[in-house]
């Protein structure tokens, strides 16, 4: 099949070697594949991020209890009683002092004298789908005046939107990269075709079918683009693999990587580049052939 599409070496000899323009195609494919690795990583990483924020945080909420210190314990107890009786609450947990300190540490530094700060108490709630958030809010307002239910939607929504947008940009970048490769290969193929018009004419005169003539060109451009893309993909993959690791909670930039099986997508880049080059060259060849009877 591949051989039928690409033609044999013998047919390849029919078109003279084109010297340094060979390297332009290889170089373009290398650069485009290198960029494609990053665009793909961006699309996949932001995709993962958006999913994570959308899923795990959708279920999680925090209830903040701000009350004078002497009432705080009583209010938290009342709150826990309510939560225990509310259907759809899978889990609830009061954050202890050290956890709160850990949350504040990035902002206020270590060695925080927590006891001297009037901090609200935090209760983490993991809800299921049938948690009636409105009902819970009303009950809290009536029975635990210091409690505020925060389901994170306010800051989660824009983040999820931003991540979705980044993911879309990643895919758009991939499309543009494929389009650029196709355009570059088309130009290179057109140059080769017009430099070899005598070869094409002779081939047609001695009875070559259009497909045969086209193959003499598609073979070399497909192989060059695939080889260039292989180099570019390897370089891009290495660059990503050796990206400095920040802490796992770091932003999405340090998360720019491939998760497990996603690495298997990389070999598709040279294949895809080869396919793009094949189609572009074939199109250019068949349209050039129309000039020859």
């Amino acid at each position, binding site marked *: 099949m591949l051989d039928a599409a690409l033609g044999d070496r013998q047919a390849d000899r029919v078109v003279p070697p084109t010297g340094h323009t060979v390297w332009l195609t290889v170089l373009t494919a290398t650069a485009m594949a290198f960029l494609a690795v990053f665009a793909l990583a961006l699309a996949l990483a932001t995709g993962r991020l958006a999913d994570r924020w959308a899923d795990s945080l959708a279920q999680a909420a925090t209830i903040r209890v701000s009350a004078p210190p002497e009432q705080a314990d009583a209010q938290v107890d009342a709150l826990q009683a309510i939560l225990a009786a509310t259907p759809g609450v899978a889990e609830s947990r009061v954050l202890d002092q050290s956890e709160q300190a850990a949350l504040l540490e990035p902002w206020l530094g270590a060695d925080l004298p927590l006891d001297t700060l009037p901090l609200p108490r935090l209760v983490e709630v993991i809800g299921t789908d049938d948690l009636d958030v409105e009902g819970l809010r009303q009950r809290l307002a009536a029975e635990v005046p210091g409690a505020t239910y925060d389901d994170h939607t306010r800051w989660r929504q824009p983040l999820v939107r931003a991540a979705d947008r980044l993911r879309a940009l990643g895919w758009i970048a991939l499309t543009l990269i494929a389009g650029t490769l196709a355009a570059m290969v088309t130009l290179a193929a057109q140059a080769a075709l017009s430099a070899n018009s005598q070869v094409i004419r002779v081939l047609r005169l*001695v009875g070559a079918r259009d497909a045969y003539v086209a193959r003499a060109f598609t073979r070399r451009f497909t192989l060059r683009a695939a080889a260039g893309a292989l180099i570019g993909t390897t370089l891009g993959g290495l660059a990503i693999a050796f990206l400095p690791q920040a802490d796992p909670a770091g932003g999405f930039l340090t998360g720019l990587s491939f998760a497990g099986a996603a690495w298997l997508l990389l070999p598709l880049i040279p294949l895809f580049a080869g396919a793009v080059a094949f189609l572009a060259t074939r199109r250019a060849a068949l349209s050039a052939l129309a000039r020859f*009877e």
Partner: protein
Amino acid sequence: MIELQGAGYSYGGAGLLAGLDLGLAQGSFHFLTGPSGAGKTTLLKLCYGDLKPTSGQVLLDGRDTRSLERDGLARMRRRIGVVHQDCQFIDHLSIRENVALPLMVAGRDVAAEAVNLAQLLGWVGLAPRADALPPQLSGGERQRAALARAIIMDPEVIIADEPTGNIDWEMSQRLLTLLAELNRMGKTVLVATHDLALIRAAKSQVSARVLRLANGVLSSGAEL
């Protein structure tokens, strides 16, 4: 196999050929003569589908060349061997590869025909030059190579445009003998030439018709 019905051709502007009727019966031998610029090459191009008639029609195997699809035309050309006036080689391939080109593009196994190829090159006297490139050959050597390429596919029809233009008398005689031999084997031959001596010499070997092209019309000359 080749038939012209009221065929005409114009390169734009005034018509060059008009209302040509010609049937090349299987096994016939025709010479085409006429002054330079009369349109002999143009007529031959109509016969192998390199040009499509601008009026009337040209039938190859009963099919109008204008409606013949491109692959069909390619297959037709494997059955018509052509010696072009300007030879038409691929310059970076050796003479051997150029002569084998029709086999190659038809998907035939070139290695399997190596003996055939060597014999043919020997016959046209190019065995020692088989590895040379076309631009390194003399005009006559190129024409002999072109003839070898025209017949390597064992075509039904052989069309030669001034095949003796650059070769000496002895070689032209050999070439004529070969064409006559091929004709006796049942092949249809059409040769465009200025060379009246060649036509006269053919008298003894084949029964050929002479077609004269002048002022865009074809007049049938004497049967030799």
